[in-house]
Structures are given as structure tokens and as C-alpha cells.
């Protein structure tokens, strides 16, 4: 066993302690709960054998880069600059823990402070924490945070309105996190054209918070959302979930009245990784600072007056406040946030804009080709889309996806998986790497399915 430096030296160490056998080390475990037989597991392997098995098993997966892929739905097939994993996995970063000892953790603390700054700039709000687990838990904890802050003044006690078109998996996370605080989640209705119904939204005024996404689950940008804060008023928090890349072109929610902005950080820093580890963005107005979840880094000085960084406002956290903490979050996603910071810094302002433009371009190019096809129509014909768009097909979308799969194309997400009444709808996702030939492959495989359905 190559991971145990004291293997074969047990006896000499036991002798020092005054014990005879390794079993003596476990003499405090009562016989009634002792396991006396070996674990019924496979035998140990060498590094070489593990690597071979990993190559075999993971190699049997179909990876997104191996075919035209139009599956996004909240995670993106991005390109991560080579520098990012190479430098972020330097052992000093990789193998450190939460920087409780700032004197020997200035590197990660400064990197996280820089991360906070870049996220703050990105979304247009003054405060960012060092990450949540993912977009869904960021949204969920934004809601519980908003209720803590706005609860007292709210006329609709404990009520939060959530957009009708939040992906159900994210909504489920929100429900699990909200139920314990006695929060009542109500649906914020959208018009038949997919946009938030601003008239209906007036009924949310006086509630604790409103949660909407820009773009929504169908990739649709909603001009009405910039007016939402005026509709719901000062005493109701506006929480906006964003596609982080879109903010290279689309106005930052902090600039149209958002109180809290959340979103998936994954497009910056790491591949989709089968859903994790990724990281959630969480930024807010100062009003929420003392009741927000997660870790935060502040700049200060050391005894000699030198600039120094440290974790701050820890009295909100579970290790100090215990059951009165603002969240139970302890381990977070710092290393992935570090990767995100590196990616953001490499892009710079114009690089971000260009990245957003590339995604907008592939979205538009794909949309034009697909929507020209007979039998296919946009779910909301007038919509402006970023990254994704939903189309109605002449049959079950799951069948279409299976057909396209046989043609070597990952055609998107059948929306029946999310909403029963949308089983004939397909969510098509694009990214900066979508090419004209990918679009052709998508179109021709979809066309051959439509022809089959029509027969």
C-alpha cells in the first residue's frame, strides 16, 4: 500500500505507546458493535490498474466533445483555458483547507477577494461571497436570505413568488431549502408569450421576494424584468438568476434594481463534469450582507501595517452561531471559484463581451436554421434568445432526440422531462463552440426524423 508511510513499522510504534497489537488500538469499541469479519469488497489495486479501469469505464461514456451537442439546460460545453486547471491544481491551492489561519493562507484569500471583485463587477452589486454549491442552492439560499431581511416589513408574511419557468430540478432544491423556514412559495405567472406578466406581478408587491431568471428556462430574454423592481417595490427583494456569460452583452441585474443575483458559475472555469463540482454565484446589496450565507473575504492589515486578507463576518456562520447561523454551509466550492476567477481574468472585459457575442451568434445561427424547417416552430415566436431556444415539434421530442442520437447528434433536452404538457417541445442549447457543421448535423438529423414522423 503506497499511501501508508508507516506500513511495516506498526510494531515499533506500538511499543513506544506501550501497546502490543493493532487490535489494542480498538479495544475501546465494545464487542457488541465490533466488525470481526473483513469488508466484503474487492482487492486493492495499483495506480496503474486504477488508471486502466478509469480509462475503460470513463472511456465508455459518450463525451460532449465527441459529437455535435445541443444539450445545455443550465450547464455549458465550454472551453476552459489550459492555464486554468494547470495552475489551479498547484498543490498549495489544491491541498489547502478553509483559510482559518490567514498568516499562511494569503494566496487563496487574495484570490477569493479578487473573485468577489470580479463577480461584483459582473452582476453590478457591491457584495459577493466566495461561492455556493451550484446555481440551485444559490437561488434557494438567496430566497431564505431575502425572507430573513425583508420578513419584518413584508405585508405578505413569509411569501415568495417564483417564476413559473424555473427548471423543476432547481425548483425542487428551492422547495427543500424553503420549507423549513415556513416560506410559502407562490408562482409568478408568465404571459402566453413567455414574458413575466407585469400586471400579475403587482400582486407580489409586499411579499418578501420575487425570484426570476434572465434568460428564462427557454433561453428567452425578457425586457419586462428591468421594470420588475419598480412594480414590486422597495420592501420586496428582487432576486435574479442569470446566465453568467450573457452578462457580457446583457445589462447587469444590479443596474436595474436587483437585490440579489445568483447563477451558475460553471461556464467560467470548469467543464460540465457530470454536474459537479461546479459553483454557484451569490452577490447582493449591502442590506443583505449580515444575513447572507457563505464565506466572505475582507481586506485589512497585519500587525506591521501590511495589507492582508482574512475571512470576515464569520459570526453569521455555523461554526460560531450553530443553530442560529444564516446557513449550514461549511465546505463550499472555493477551488472551482478559483478556476472561475482565473478564467474571468484571462477573458478580461472585452474577452467576456466576445464570448457572449459568440454564444449569441451560435444561438441565432442555429435558431434560424431550425425554425426554417417545415413542421418546427418556436414556442414563443417573438422571443429574443441567448444560448437556448425551445421549439415545438410534430411529435414527441423524446423520440426526436432518440432518432438524432442514432445519427450521432445530441439534439437537446426533451421538455417533457421538465413539464408534462411540453412533451412535443425540444430545448436546443448552443455554446461558443457550436459550429456551422454542428448546426447542419442537427438540422439534417431532425429533418430525417420529421420525414419519418410525417410518413
Amino acid at each position, binding site marked *: 500500500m503506497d499511501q501508508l508511510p508507516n506500513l511495516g513499522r506498526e510494531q515499533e510504534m506500538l511499543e513506544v505507546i506501550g501497546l502490543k497489537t493493532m487490535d489494542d488500538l480498538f479495544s475501546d469499541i465494545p464487542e457488541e458493535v465490533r466488525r470481526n469479519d473483513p469488508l466484503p469488497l474487492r482487492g486493492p489495486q495499483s495506480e496503474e490498474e486504477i488508471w486502466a479501469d478509469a480509462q475503460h469505464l470513463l472511456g465508455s461514456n459518450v463525451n460532449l466533445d465527441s459529437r455535435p451537442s445541443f444539450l445545455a439546460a443550465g450547464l455549458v460545453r465550454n472551453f476552459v483555458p489550459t492555464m486554468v486547471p494547470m495552475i489551479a491544481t498547484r498543490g498549495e491551492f489544491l491541498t489547502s483547507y478553509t483559510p482559518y489561519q490567514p498568516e499562511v493562507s494569503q494566496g487563496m484569500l487574495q484570490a477569493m477577494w479578487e473573485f468577489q471583485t470580479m463577480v461584483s463587477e459582473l452582476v453590478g452589486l457591491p457584495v459577493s461571497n466566495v461561492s455556493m454549491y451550484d446555481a440551485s442552492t444559490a437561488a434557494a439560499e438567496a430566497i431564505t436570505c431575502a425572507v430573513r431581511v425583508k420578513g419584518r416589513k413584508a405585508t405578505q408574511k413569509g411569501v415568495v413568488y417564483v417564476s413559473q419557468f424555473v427548471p423543476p430540478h432547481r425548483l425542487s432544491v428551492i422547495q427543500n431549502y424553503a420549507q423549513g423556514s415556513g416560506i410559502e412559495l407562490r408562482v409568478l405567472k408568465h404571459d402566453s408569450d413567455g414574458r413575466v406578466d407585469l400586471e400579475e406581478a403587482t400582486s407580489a408587491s409586499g411579499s418578501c421576494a420575487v425570484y426570476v431568471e434572465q434568460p428564462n428556462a427557454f433561453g428567452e430574454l425578457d425586457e419586462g424584468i428591468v421594470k420588475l423592481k419598480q412594480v414590486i417595490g422597495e420592501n420586496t427583494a428582487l432576486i435574479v438568476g442569470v446566465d453568467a456569460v450573457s452578462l457580457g452583452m446583457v445589462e447587469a441585474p444590479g443596474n436595474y434594481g436587483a437585490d440579489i443575483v445568483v447563477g451558475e458559475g460553471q461556464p467560467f472555469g470548469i467543464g460540465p463534469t457530470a454536474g459537479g463540482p461546479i459553483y454557484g454565484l451569490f452577490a447582493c446589496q449591502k442590506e443583505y450582507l449580515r444575513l447572507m450565507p457563505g464565506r466572505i473575504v475582507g481586506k485589512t492589515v497585519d500587525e506591521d501595517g501590511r495589507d492582508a486578507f482574512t475571512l470576515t463576518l464569520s459570526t453569521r456562520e455555523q461554526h460560531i452561531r450553530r443553530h442560529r447561523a444564516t446557513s449550514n454551509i461549511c465546505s463550499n466550492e472555493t477551488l472551482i471559484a478559483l478556476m472561475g476567477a482565473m478564467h*474571468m481574468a484571462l477573458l478580461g472585459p472585452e474577452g467576456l463581451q466576445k464570448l457572449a457575442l459568440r454564444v449569441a451568434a451560435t444561438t441565432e445561427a442555429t435558431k434560424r436554421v431550425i425554425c426554417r424547417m417545415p413542421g418546427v416552430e418556436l414556442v414563443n415566436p417573438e422571443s429574443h434568445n441567448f444560448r437556448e431556444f425551445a421549439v415545438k415539434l410534430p411529435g414527441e421530442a423524446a423520440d426526436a432526440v432518440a432518432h438524432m442520437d442514432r445519427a450521432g447528434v445530441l439534439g437537446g433536452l426533451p421538455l417533457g422531462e421538465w413539464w408534462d404538457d411540453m412533451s412535443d417541445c425540444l430545448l436546443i442549447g448552443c455554446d461558443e463552440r457550436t459550429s456551422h457543421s454542428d448546426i447542419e448535423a442537427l438540422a439534417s438529423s431532425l429533418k430525417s426524423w420529421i420525414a419519418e414522423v410525417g410518413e
Partner: protein
Amino acid sequence: MSDIFEFNGAEGTGWSQPGPIIGDAQDTIPKSLVRAELPKWPRASEPELVRHYTWLSQRNFGIDTGFYPLGSCTMKHNPRVNERIVQLPGIDRIHPLQPEHQIQGLLSIFFEMQEMLEICSGMDQVTLQPVAGAQGEFTAIRCIQEYHRANGESHRDKVIVPDSAHGTNPASAAMCGYEIIEIPSGDDGRLDLEALSAAVGNDTAAMMITNPSTLGIFEPEIAMAAEIVHAAGGQMYYDGANFNAILGKTDPGRMGFDAVHYNLHKTFSQPHGGGGPGSGPIGVKSHLSEFLPAPLADREPIEGGGGATGDGYRYFWRTPSRTIGKVQQWHGNAGAVVRAWAFYRRYGRELELMSEHAVLNANYLRYRILNPDPESHDLQDIHAMPVDGAPAEVVKHEFTLSMAPLKEATGVTGKDVAKRLLDYGYMSPTLYFPMIVPECLMIEPTETESREVLDKFANVFLDILAEDPELVSTAPHTTDVRRVDEVQAARNLVLRHPCED
């Protein structure tokens, strides 16, 4: 000092990207939504950033830098092959919503990990979805909550935790809506059954406890505690933060627990990465398994064998019938699960050996510190010896020391000793936890430290106890920065760079 916001190259330079595939994409954004001003991110080139982040890394302490005896955090070596494996496109370039037949290899790893963790914990069903230990706690308590509700027992609104519990335990239960009953430990630091009996009742939903406790000692009466809680109709929850001590020696199932969480970033070496990512799978007994988050990995034999992985099974996702839904949007931290799988494969059925060495190292270091070698240390020079946080013949994977005698003799606090250790190139032990031990240092060496490292650390520790109190109480002296003004950090909040033009 390297300041990323001082990099300010020319507009449009920096990391290169291909152009947009069509020319008029800017028109796809409604005019009223177009961003007025771009974020003030730095404008830097790759060489500048590589140097900046390398400089930052050199100002950061990790396991790779030196001994990291941070109690309760299990800072063991992170095998490097695991990092190589997660760069494979078969995990890095996978979308969790891909059709099952495209991700058979991933599903088979998930299934193998569920099964292995079930065996090691004595539970019936594991889910890998929770992404951190605290989220595992939250998830399990949610399952217990729905179980009680399904049985018409929703009046059970209290969760019991010992006063030595990790802060996440009460925080997680409170997030589910439970009232917390904290019970005092006995004088010996162990679970007090009388206090427990007095606390349980018709309103008990669950008890949350870790064993070995945060003092590093095994609770001998744990099975009795489980009986008391069960007799009152409550459920037993096992905080698996300290699993590294017991693998193959005992398991929570035998102790009478109904639900447990694992910390794959502790026991199974997912790197801690400056605070995360983690992974916090939970295991439950069969009466709770239908409440678990969806989906679980499952499999069925293929007639005639074969299959994508060649093992004769078809793997698929299964939704438990009364699932609580999701706690993370996808399938958890799959990358951490794959690393933990690679770590597990190294040991296989010999995981027991890992726990044996973790416990051997803890007991050895404890002995070496508490019994100074007269040849290297003159006892008269030591101002005051620490005392054991709890009396015990043997400890498990960690132990606690109270520095109260030193504070009394010289004014030097536990924190001062911790800071002085930094000068010698060691990470500080966990400080002032558990709170029931005054001036507490909590030390966990893990199985991956050699005897020589432990000897050297013990000697340095004892040297510090003999040092000039002034020198120790003003430590650290040799680090990148000296003691940081945390009061000013909280009073005068500077949470981002001003980014002025």
C-alpha cells in the same frame, strides 16, 4: 505584492478566441437590455496571470507544503492519479442529463460507490447527491422529517445534539425547521445517557451525533443511546466526519443508526481546495430509502452479458417512490465521486488498514507529546504541560489537548501556540473546538504522515512550551504576514477592489 487589478493592457488583447460564427449577433439582444458598461475586469495576458497565480500559490499552505494536523478535517495526502483521472473527457466533458446509454461508465462508478459506502456504513441505500457534509446532514434530516410526516408523526419537532457536536449539525436541523435541544456532555467528555434520557420524548424527531466524538474518543454506550432514542420514536443520525477512525472496525449500522453521511473529501481524499469542493453522500436504512433524493444509480443484468462497460449489466437512474426531490440540481459532485472511487480502489477490502494507521498515528503522536522524551526535553524547561481533552486509554483518529495550564502559568494561549507552529512550517491544529475543552487544540495527523514527521512535530510542540512566552504570544514571526487584524476587517468592511479608473 502582485495586484491583479494593476494589469491593464490594451483593449481587446489577452486570451485569444475565434470570432462569432455570424456577423450580426449583437442585434439579437433587445436594445433595452444591452449592457451599458462592461465589468472592470483586469486586462491581463497569460504570462502575467500565470505569474500572478503562482505567486499567490506560494503564499498558501497546503498538505503538499507541510504537516496539516487540522483536527476533524482529515487532511490526508491527495493521490495525484485522481486528478489525472478527472481530466478525462469521460467525466470532464459529460452532461448529467445525457441519456443513460451514453454514460454507462459513470453510472457503473456511481453504483459501485453506493454499494461500497453501504457496506462500510452498514446501511441499505446510499445516495451520492449531497455535495458537502453539511448538505448530507440537511438531506438526511429532510428524509427523516418526511418519514415522520408520512407516519402521521409531524408533531415531532425537536432534534437533539450533544454540546460537542459540529456546528453544522444544529445548523442543518434548524434549516429543516427543527428546534434544537443541546445536551451537555458528561464530566469525562462522553455522551451522558441520563441527560439524553431526560431530553427525549414524544417530540423527538432525531438525535445527531458523531462517533468517535469530536474529542476523538469512542462512545462506549452508543448502542444504548440508540435504544433510548428509538424507544422514544426518534431516529438516529450519524455524522460521518470521523469515519476515518473506524472503517472495517465497526459501522453506524451496528451502532443502531438509521442514517449517516460521509465526507468524501475527508475519508476518501477529495482535495479540500481551500474550502471545497466536498462531497457528502448519505446512507440510510431501508425504512428511509424511499425518501432519498432522486435519482439513484441502479442496474439490471443483461441477458447474455456484455453491456457498455462489459460487466453484464445495464445501468440506469431510479427515482425513489416518495423522494424529497433534489438538494443539488444534478447528480452531486460527480468529479469528487470519481476521485473517491479511485482512492477506494487503491485499498479495496483493506480500507481497514487505512483506519488502523490513522488511529496508530493519532495515538503515537498523543503519546509523544504527553510523554516528553527526557533525552531531548528537560521537563523543568517546559512552563506547563497540556492536559488531555478527555481521559481515555486510547483515542481514535484525533485527540484534543487543553492548553489551559500553559495559559495559567505564562499567559500563553492555545491560539498563541497554534500561531507559533506556523513559524515552524506546520499548519495549526483546529483551535478552540470542541468548546467543552478549555484552550483546546484538536490534532488529527491522518494515516499518510510518517513516524519521522510525527516525532519532529512532537519535539517542536514541546520546544514551544519551553520558549519565551513573549516570543510565542507574538507569533507568527516568519510568515508572509503577521497576525491579521480581524477586528478591523469586520469593522471597516473592504470586500472588493474599488476598481477606480
